[in-house]
């Protein structure tokens, strides 16, 4: 009961800050709202008792991705902080189209799939040991291939960003 009330409170708060991301007039405020929204989703995972995914959400999205966004903003913004900037351009309708399409696709998929935790079903207990076993024993090859792909992308990014003498 308490969990359900908290869940709804967080749901409303997350929708509110997500609206803040879209409608805020400055990019920096949008980025900060985005951090709050992602942290709220992490808290939601805690209510849903998947603490590992919640902590990964905090570590990756809260601590790393948004920091990179803020860092990029810090390095590129000019002028007074907090001044309104133009936020819509000619691409706005296409962006809205893509976002709406994604939203309806996700809702459709989520509703039409039979999840193990649906009414009448039972949830498998997922601990960090289960995740580790699945990742390193049953899905070892995909894990290694993903790692190699990331490494290639990493080296590629360094090569592109690198400036040789005389370039």
């Amino acid at each position: 009961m308490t969990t359900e009330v908290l869940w709804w409170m967080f749901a409303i708060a997350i929708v509110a800050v997500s609206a803040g991301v879209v409608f805020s007039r400055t990019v920096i405020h949008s980025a900060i709202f985005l951090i709050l929204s992602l942290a709220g989703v992490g808290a939601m995972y805690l209510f849903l008792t998947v603490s590992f995914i919640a902590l990964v959400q905090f570590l990756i999205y809260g601590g790393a991705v948004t920091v990179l966004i803020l860092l990029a903003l810090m390095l590129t913004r000019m002028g007074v902080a907090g001044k309104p900037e133009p936020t819509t351009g000619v691409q706005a309708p296409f962006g809205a189209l893509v976002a709406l399409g994604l939203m309806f696709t996700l809702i459709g998929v989520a509703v039409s799939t039979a999840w193990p935790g649906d009414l009448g079903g039972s949830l498998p207990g997922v601990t960090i040991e289960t995740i580790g076993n699945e990742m390193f024993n049953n899905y070892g090859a995909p894990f290694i291939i993903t790692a190699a792909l990331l490494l290639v992308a990493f080296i590629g990014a360094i090569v592109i960003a690198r400036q040789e003498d005389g370039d």
Partner: protein
Amino acid sequence: MTFGEPFFGLSWLDAIIRILIIVLVMTIVVVYLTYGERKVVARFQMRLGPTRTGPLGLLQGFADAIKLLIKEDIRPRNADRWVFEFAPFLTFIPVFLVLVALPFARDWGVRNLALGMFFVFAVLGLNIVGVLMAGLGSGNKYALLGGVRAAAQMISYEIPLVVALLAVAMVAGTLDLNAIVSMQDARPFILIQPLAFVIFFTAMLSELHRAPFDIPVAESEIVGGYFVEYSGIRWSMFQLAEYASMWAFSIFGAAIFLGGWQFPFGDDWGWGWQLALTLIKSLIMILLIFWVRATLPRLRMDQLMSFCWKALIEVSFALLLVNGLFLFYGWPEPILAAVNWVGTIAFLGGIYLRAARKPSTKDLVGSYKHVEVSNS
């Protein structure tokens, strides 16, 4: 007082009472850490430090706190108002959350989390957000520079920190902090993972912005960094967060590497002794931090980054590989410890030899290097 028996039988009330106790203790500890730092650094510099307020200057911290509370709270005109005002609180929240997971004595902490170690470094990563908000929101170039430096430094040093801790977690076989501590009844993990401790301590200094990594808050370069525009109570929030995270990191390090409440006496001794052991070990780590601060000069930004990316990360991944080999083949622990000690001595010796070598000044012509100018 154990994890299993909540006060008054209500788990939420129990959590609130425990958090209140820890926050009160933390406030007192922070006040005396500022005093202790001034005293210790003063003795290192052949001075006396604060002596006037109270006996031996013991009330100095409280006097400073009162002074900070009644100072005017200034907000610059071109600051981004909400970002500026919320930044100090956002730097404090992660530290506060870390205190929730730390084990202070056997079965005593706020909550014993099954993923305790992972929780600590997941939450500590959020620390950067408040620092960046302060840098962005102040509307000041020095604050912005401090914020950029802090962000670059913290996301770089987070990697060796986490990898070194993972190496210890591999040896322990769990992420539960209380279980890790109770495993160290015969030997603390610093004896079998000294290299991990060296990496952890270095990365910790960097995450805390302590000397020699205090580049984001360098007074002589960028007049104090990201909190240059803050005054009064908001500035004191930054100080509180800094010293509280130093304390939290020390207890965390004491629990993982120095044996926490468990090591010399075991769990036969009462919870008072265990609590005292934890606090004494954390104070030893804090004293080490002050000692380093009083001894070493500040690094340059490029030295800081190249040390992290060219030395610490490689060494920490090598440590992870060696630990993996030993654990996979089940080779005995003394050999693992010996290999680690050899690695530690090689690493520290390499750093020492590199520093002791007389630097060549051959190509230095007033600038970093001599550049050939072509006439074409």
